[in-house]
């Protein structure tokens, strides 16, 4: 269980985040949702340990980790731009961490991850030969080899399009379920957040606007911001889609989530 209590962060006297209180249960997928500049990436960096907090506590399994340096917290992140190492091929990227800690994953566990993420045929490729979705899966595999206690994902879908987006969503869900891994995702896209996660944390102006299950957020928006900016956006999307399909074009095939990416 990850508990955050009264977390506060400011840069040069400007408060970025304040009064952050929340609890995330083991194995949950939580999305941090908000407009750009709301402080969601700062929150992610605080949990990761890349940034120091001004006040508050971050408790993981009851222990305050705020004073621990990043590399000792045991959390791990996949950055938005993947940060893959172009001088190494796919396989060497995936097993990068094994050079430092050979026993962290067994050979079998690595092979399982490669198969789970569908990377078997790409292992000898260079990073520059991969598509966006493939890069994302390599970055996920590389991070999973390190067996993170919490997986942090920074805008994992924003650089991907269409069907690939759905397939990566499915992979993220599968990983969280199979490995019972607490996963925290930063996103600016309400549709992504509400369809991917168990709980959604809506951040606005540096503090929590609403935190709850997707259902609750749709049915019981707690304030104007959630109504105006989150739900309204989805409503427009919904209407657009409905208009498209009303004109006699019945959908002929279902979306194949989890297909190729």
């Amino acid at each position, binding site marked *: 269980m990850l508990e955050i209590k009264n977390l506060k962060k400011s840069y040069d006297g400007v408060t970025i985040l304040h009064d952050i209180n929340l609890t995330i249960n083991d194995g949950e997928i939580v999305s941090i949702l908000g407009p750009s500049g709301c402080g969601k990436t700062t929150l992610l960096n605080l949990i990761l340990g890349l940034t120091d907090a001004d006040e508050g506590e971050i408790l993981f399994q009851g222990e305050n980790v705020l004073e*621990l340096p990043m590399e000792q917290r045991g959390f791990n992140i996949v950055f938005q731009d993947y940060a893959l190492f172009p001088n190494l091929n796919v396989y060497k990227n995936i097993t990068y*961490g094994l050079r430092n800690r050979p026993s962290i994953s067994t050979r079998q566990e690595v092979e399982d991850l490669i198969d789970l993420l569908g990377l078997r045929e790409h292992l000898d490729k260079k990073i520059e030969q991969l598509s966006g979705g493939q890069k994302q899966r390599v970055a996920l595999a590389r991070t999973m080899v390190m067996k993170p206690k919490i997986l942090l994902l920074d805008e994992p879908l924003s650089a991907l399009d269409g069907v690939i987006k759905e397939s990566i969503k499915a992979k993220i869900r599968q990983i969280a379920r199979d490995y019972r891994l607490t996963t925290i995702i930063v996103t600016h896209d309400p549709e992504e957040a509400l369809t991917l996660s168990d709980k959604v944390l809506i951040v606005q102006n540096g503090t929590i606007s609403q935190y709850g299950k997707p259902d609750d957020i749709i049915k019981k928006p707690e304030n104007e911001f959630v109504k105006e900016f989150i739900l309204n956006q989805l409503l427009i999307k919904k209407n657009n889609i409905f208009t498209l399909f009303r004109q006699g074009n019945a959908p002929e095939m279902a979306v194949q989530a989890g297909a190729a990416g």
Partner: protein
Amino acid sequence: MSRKKELEIKGIFVLVVLVFLIFLLVPLARLFLKSFVGDAGLTPDFYGEVLTGRGFLRAFGNSLVISSVSAVVTTLLAFILAYGVHYCNLPGRYKGFISRAAVAPMLLPTITYGFAIIYSFGKQGLITRLFGTQLFDIYGFNGLLLGYVIYTLPVSFLLLSNTMSYIDKKFSVVSRIMGDSPFATFVGTVLRPLLGTLAASFVQCFFLCFTDYGIPASVGGEYEVAATVLYNEMLGSVPNFSRGACVAMLMLIPSVVTIALLHYLEKYNIRYNKISQIEIRRGRIRDTVFGVLSAVILACILSVFAVIFVVPFVDEWPYRIQFTLEHVLGVFADNSLVTVCRNSLVVALLTAALGSLTTYGAALTTARSHLPGGVKQVIENISLITNTIPGMVIGIAYLLIFSGTPLQNTLFLLVICNVIHFFSTPYLMMKSSLTKMNASWETTAMLMGDTWLKTIVRVVTPNAMGTILEVFSYYFVNAMVTVSAVIFIAGARTMVITTKIKELQYYTKFNEVFVLSLLILAVNLAARGVFRGIAAGRQGAKRMVRRPAFRKQKA
């Protein structure tokens, strides 16, 4: 604290700063002091003496005039060449030839240019004999102009060619579709975006001409320039170090002004992220004109160098012109010359190694650390200062401060002098390459158990290798051809090829001069080939990192 303290990078920063403190700032301070200190304590008298005596002001004025004229001519010629490459439908191989030939003079020391001019256009020169009459008087203004133009053309061409490759050529299409006349299109979509670079090219060429010593040393004649005055004050028949220091300080003034101008012009520098490839409009007349003009310009330049390949291989130019290898073999039989060649190679290799290390360390602190901005600014300022100081000034400062120390007459002193003298451009190349790399690598690698140093070795360095090789090659070639700084600090045992050429000139042994020049050319060509080969082998078909738009070349 969870933020890593970055102790390693702080250590590197301290080391880099220490090197520049000891080998740049302290010598410069000493030079400054020397220009004021006489037997009777502090005095401004030396400046008075210099400014009033021995035609200094006239030489200074001459320098300003000849440098300005050369800069204008060079920029014009370089524009024609670059326009031919980027805006005309010339055959691809011809374009490749233009690009390579335009930068070829970089591979030779400037002191050679002068002798090549003498042996081409002099009374008994190769070209004079071909035409049957001497085309112009080579000693003085004309010879200097020709030498300076050849010397600065590569830099000007690189600057203009680089900017032209970034200018969006679609604007030309838009302009024509909107009904502009061809002239208006040219002005609006070629000339205007290039203005900043054209000005930068002028300033850069001016700086190079003003601070070069090699060319006036050979063809200056009666036309005295600031660099020759400086040399004569320091190493002439009646040396006066205090007056020399004054001249050096005065030479800094135009340097500082030109660099300040370059920085100001940087604002006009256009930066496009994407280079859009577009088909160039058909234009037979345009293509013919620029194709022919380019050929003429390059023929003129290369013909000057033709003599280098002729004179050392004939019996006795111009009287007995049978082919012979006697002179070449003579050089290799001469022990002192072989030592000089070995010194040059050792200095060039060590300069390249130490220079790459220094620039890499410096660029890591500015491009890949979280040190505060003020700390990074220190490195930026160092780069700026090294860019401003002419080689001769560094050489004289070293002469003043290291004479009598164990460092005097060591190859190490030559190496460190080169590393500092040429620091700016490779540093900027390195920084630009490191800045472009993914900012999250270090964090990601640390989460996988790397230390900072491990990440640098396993990830950053392999990805920077292309640029590191470029920097290595840049330092190597420049160390091979430089004469301005090392002429003051090379001793009898630490003589390098370029300083030896200066000495051979004194004894009028021109065969040896040309053999040694050829040797430098061969070594540089070979070195470039090797470094390019390694880089290509490593990177596969991947494109090399682009050079920063404003790079500086120094004598």
